């Protein structure tokens, strides 16, 4: 079943076309990895999925509802169904890790403090980061910040997880840890996930479907096995890492 569908999405910034008639479908319960070279608009695409950026033209359908035309207030209630892991974590640096994870719960639930603290502890354990509630984000390494940010993204038990370059800038061991963590979390909680990356290994290990973004369009959307065998020269160039 289609959970998210992007139809003929166009987006330009200062005359520079970033998305140019893009079409994409995301099936419920699947992990869709969007691969593409740096600067092809992957982050812009991901931000369209929760209305952080609205398209100039086209539709962003979530279960048939067009987010591109949704009033801001309704868009805010839609966003509570998403968890978003930003490239560098984007933890609020004036709050402790515990306060960061508690933040969406304090904002959107009327739970008592003890219950929120319990959820914070559970979520931190879920991302294998126990006992860091009182640390500030700047006291954690990049990988730990990403895990804490994942815990925050999971705080409201979202249906859909969006990952923006989850392994960029991490060492190989932390990359593998984060990759496993994403797989365990998404599969374990039966979430739908959209991951954008240029990490081919991540895509092959994680994806149910790989979509390839090139010059503002999704060139192909297929299983990891058939993606590797794709006859498209752009895909093969990307897979082999051949320069232009």
């Amino acid at each position, binding site marked *: 079943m289609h959970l998210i569908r992007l139809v003929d999405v166009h987006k330009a910034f200062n005359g520079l076309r970033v998305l140019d008639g893009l079409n994409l479908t995301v099936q419920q319960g699947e992990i869709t990895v969007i691969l593409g070279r740096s600067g092809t608009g992957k982050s812009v695409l991901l*931000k369209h999925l*929760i209305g*952080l950026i609205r398209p100039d033209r086209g539709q962003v359908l979530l279960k048939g509802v067009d987010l591109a035309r949704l009033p801001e207030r309704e868009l*805010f*209630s839609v*966003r*509570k169904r*998403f968890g*978003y892991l*930003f*490239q*560098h974590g*984007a*933890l*609020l*640096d*004036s709050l402790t890790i515990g306060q960061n994870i508690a*933040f*969406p719960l*304090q*904002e*959107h639930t009327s739970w008592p403090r003890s219950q929120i603290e319990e959820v914070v502890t559970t979520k931190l354990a879920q991302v294998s980061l126990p006992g860091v509630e009182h640390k500030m984000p700047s006291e954690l390494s990049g990988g730990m910040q990403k895990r804490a940010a994942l815990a*925050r993204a999971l705080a409201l038990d979202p249906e859909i997880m969006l990952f923006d370059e989850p392994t960029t800038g991490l060492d190989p061991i932390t990359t593998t840890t984060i990759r496993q963590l994403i797989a365990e979390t998404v599969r374990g909680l039966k979430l739908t996930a959209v991951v954008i990356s240029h990490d081919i290994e991540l895509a092959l290990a994680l994806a149910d479907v790989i979509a390839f973004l090139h010059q503002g369009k999704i060139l192909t959307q297929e299983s990891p096995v058939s993606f590797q065998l794709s006859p498209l020269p752009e895909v093969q160039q990307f897979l082999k890492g051949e320069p232009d």
Partner: protein
Amino acid sequence: MMFARLLARLGDLFLGLLRELGEMAMLLVNCLLWLPRPPYRIRHFFGQLEFIGVRSLFIVALTGLFSGMVLALQAYYGFRKFGGESLLGGAVALSMTREIGPVLTSLMVTARAGSAMAAELGTMRVTEQVDALLAMAVHPVHYLALPRVLSGLIMVPLLTVVDVFIGILGGYFVGVMLLGINPGTYMQKMVEMVVASDLYNGLFKSMVFGLLLALISCHQGLKARGGAQGVGLVTTRAVVYSAVAILIVDYMLTALLF
């Protein structure tokens, strides 16, 4: 050709100014729209009151003290030329309540807290923390701008009271203790010359300045783009725009109120 280019440049500047003013008006409207909506985040709001108000107290008091002292000194030399030294108390108090207090306090808060606001929000913008707030269904105007704008509105007048009080004390010290003016005359002229409306209007001015500096600083911070350079740019702009706006609005309000 050169004239046409100059005109085009002026037109661009004017349009840019209009755009900035429009965006700030929208930010103010957004703040007002979010004001009654829960959650109220009292602790967060008190944190901003403390940051803008309590932590500016020392620098505002220091500025007030020396501005009152220098005012007394300068006015004394002027008044002495026609034997009007007895007016010193009134002149210092009037200048402090009407003009120096509100303007200097606002400029000091701009330099200390306005720049910090712009830099903090700018850093949050470029490190995607503002996007993270939006992704968590929390509006940045509600969470970031509103408590700062409200705090500016409340704390700048309170700081102005402190500034004026200490400025008058400083003026008294110079006038009475150093220059030998009769303390009774000094106080009497002050009470005679300053009326309640001077105080109210001075405080009203400082409320407007507080609102302006917080709005401008938040607006600039939330507009930051790029990296460290972008944050530096909006911080500079926040301070320069706030200072210029305070001085222009000061003239307008003085013409209207007094």
